């Protein structure tokens, strides 16, 4: 019965029902996803007393911009964004490149012991960070790198193993023939990486890049321990200083910090999302 769905202009009732059900599910899902964000946004306009004493209410009874005023006074937002971007830009640019280059060697070249090497590199993800933190802190601290952005930047420059793994998998779907041809042409590996692979990698790089960007933007634990001077802090530890206010009970204040810090993320996402959705014709490259 589905066979007709694709081609015939008038659809069978069952197919229409299927489509309706699909939309219903998607819309329901969408509501659950919008709802928390909406709640966060609306809470920023509530006075603190409403969130503590009234149970669950979506809309403020009394609208107030008090929280925005307070966040403005307590959080040096500009400074925080500047510091965060000082981490984001080098890490995402350099780190994505090193990740992609490494992934290319894994996926499309004869790399000795590739599988074992990949597993070893991934082992870093398998040990809980809590167990690695103390030695790491000691090392940075002995190099006098606390209250400094370098502990947050340096590791990222050498790539991100999760991204490497994703790119390897993604490259698995790109025909080897493209590169065989290049080899015969005498095109160097690096050149074939830059000119053939990178352009095809955009959907994957954009998707992983957005997540990495998000991860750094929202990273809280390490920055809050390495950075204790407000002027050196990235955005999240700064915003978290609102959290402890009155034992974290000033909910609107916390939400305002979170809401404001989410806006740049949405902007970045909107810029990049067209890459991982717009089909790049891979096969047209082979002909």
């Amino acid at each position, binding site marked *: 019965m589905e066979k007709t769905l694709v081609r015939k202009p008038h659809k069978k009732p069952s197919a229409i029902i299927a489509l309706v059900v699909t939309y219903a599910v998607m819309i329901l899902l969408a509501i659950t996803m919008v709802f928390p964000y909406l709640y966060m946004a609306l809470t920023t306009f509530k006075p*603190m*007393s409403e969130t*503590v*004493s*009234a*149970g669950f209410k979506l809309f403020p009874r009394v609208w107030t911009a008090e929280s925005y005023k307070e966040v403005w006074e*307590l*959080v040096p937002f500009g400074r925080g964004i500047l510091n965060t971007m000082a981490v984001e830009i080098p890490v995402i640019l350099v780190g994505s490149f090193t990740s992609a280059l490494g992934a290319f060697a894994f996926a499309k070249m004869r790399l000795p012991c590739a599988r074992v090497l990949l597993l070893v590199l991934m082992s870093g993800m398998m040990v809980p960070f809590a167990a690695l*933190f*103390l*030695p790491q*802190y*000691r*090392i940075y*601290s002995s190099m006098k790198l606390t209250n400094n952005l370098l502990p947050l930047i340096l590791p990222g420059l050498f790539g991100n193993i999760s991204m490497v793994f994703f790119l390897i998998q993604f490259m698995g779907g790109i025909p080897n023939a493209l590169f065989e041809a290049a080899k015969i042409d005498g095109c160097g590996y690096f050149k074939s990486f830059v000119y053939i692979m990178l352009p095809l990698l955009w959907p994957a790089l954009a998707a992983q890049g957005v997540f990495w960007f998000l991860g750094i933007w929202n990273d809280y*634990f390490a920055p*809050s*321990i390495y950075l*204790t*001077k407000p002027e050196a802090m990235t955005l999240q*530890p700064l915003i*978290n*200083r*609102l*959290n*402890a*206010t*009155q*034992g974290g*009970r*000033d909910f609107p204040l916390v939400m305002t910090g979170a809401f404001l810090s989410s806006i740049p993320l949405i902007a970045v996402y909107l810029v990049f999302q067209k890459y991982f959705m717009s089909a790049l014709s891979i096969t047209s490259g082979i002909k």
Partner: protein
Amino acid sequence: MKTGTKIAGITLSLMLGMAAFAGCGGGRGSASVEPFVNDYDPNREYNIDFLGWGDAKEQEIYKRIINDFMAIHPNIHVSYDASSAGEYLTKLTGEIADLPDVFYLPDTEFLQWVDGGHLLNLIGENGVDEEKLKNVWDNAVNEYFYNPETFQLGRSEGAGMFALPKDQGPFTLAYNIDLVNQRIAANRLEDDEEVKALFSHQPVTWTVFRNAMKKLLQGAPSNMYGVPYYELEHAVYSNNAEFFNEDATVSRLTSPAMVDAVQFIGDLCTDGITPKTGLAMNGDGADNMFFQGNALMTFVGPWDFATIWDLDNFHCDLLPVPYGPGPDRQYNTADDGKSTAFIGSMGYCVAYKTKERGTSGASLMLAEYLCMNENAQRKFYSFGQCVPNLKDMAYNEYVPDSLGILADEGHTDPAHRDIFIEIVDGFKDENDKIGGKPRILYQTYFSTWRTNLEDAINQSKLYTGEQTAQQVLAAHEPSFQASLDEMSGMLRK
């Protein structure tokens, strides 16, 4: 085969070597009570690192007070860093080899840190001003004494003082005034003796507490409770009971007073005074229940009033916690419990390392200023989250609000601020009915024994009445004793 063992041996020693590198400069291994040597020289310049925690607003207050300090002592420059409460101890542990000159330490961590030898004894000829210290709460001061020879906490022969109290957090019951009045009116309890006794701001017995609560809750909505949960320490302390013996080596879990204390918590659940979650209710859940008018009372500390002042039409006042009959299980005998709340506390510590750095004297000056300078203490209490450290200020200024600081800010709740002060001031004499003690974790090396005990109670059938406290505690006692043995091994090795 042989080379294999050799390689394994080399690898292992290499690993241990690296670990030793990363662990180096850690604990000094033992505390010492050598007298404080004041190395302060008014003609020298000092840079003092001070690490604490707190939210943005609290950090502002600290900055102001530190600026006052630096204005008085222009040759001391204080660099103030603050992390968030959740990450603070992790950070401090990371810095163990090179601790800041002055730093916070919660009393529950004190034993491990003082025993590790990281804290400087502040008593000495030119050490802490012991005359001025007499004006600070005795309980608070005693808490930070420790004798490394006998492993004894508190003031004793040969003990040193390893921190100055930051502030004292008495944790007691607060009731929602309007809600209680509604319940009284609804059940016509205006003349009920037990209800009147409960709200007389004097300690009542557990029996009166339970009876009065039951009467108040008659006809109340099914999701309304008396208290969201009942603090374990308050039940134990106020029944003259003990978790363990004096030096925390022998379990007292199955002693009658301890059993009764836990049974009291179970009875509150079966009575419907607390929800069936018992001890498992977490802080947020309890607060929400109270603020939303679904609980007549809850446990609060001074810091909670920052929230309460901001609420519209929400007023509450303090009560001392009720007390139990004591080990003989009879009221009106000599061993009756006394209304005892726990007091959360934190200390300002001076790092042992300041001796090498030559900053001990300047560090102590900062700690003393924060702990007992009048202006600093006044600023702290007007900020509104703590009671003053200084006895005279607390009694003459804070309780009557003689300078009108609290009234100006609209911070008039709680009307019975004196109960906070009564708790902090401890038991002064035989007739003193209200007092407080440090949290039980202050006395032990680890906190896991407490988690396990609460889990054992929460996971049992105590709250439904299918099991008695005696059964639950007896079943848990072997594991409890093993935890005590483990901790005692840490200390006395």
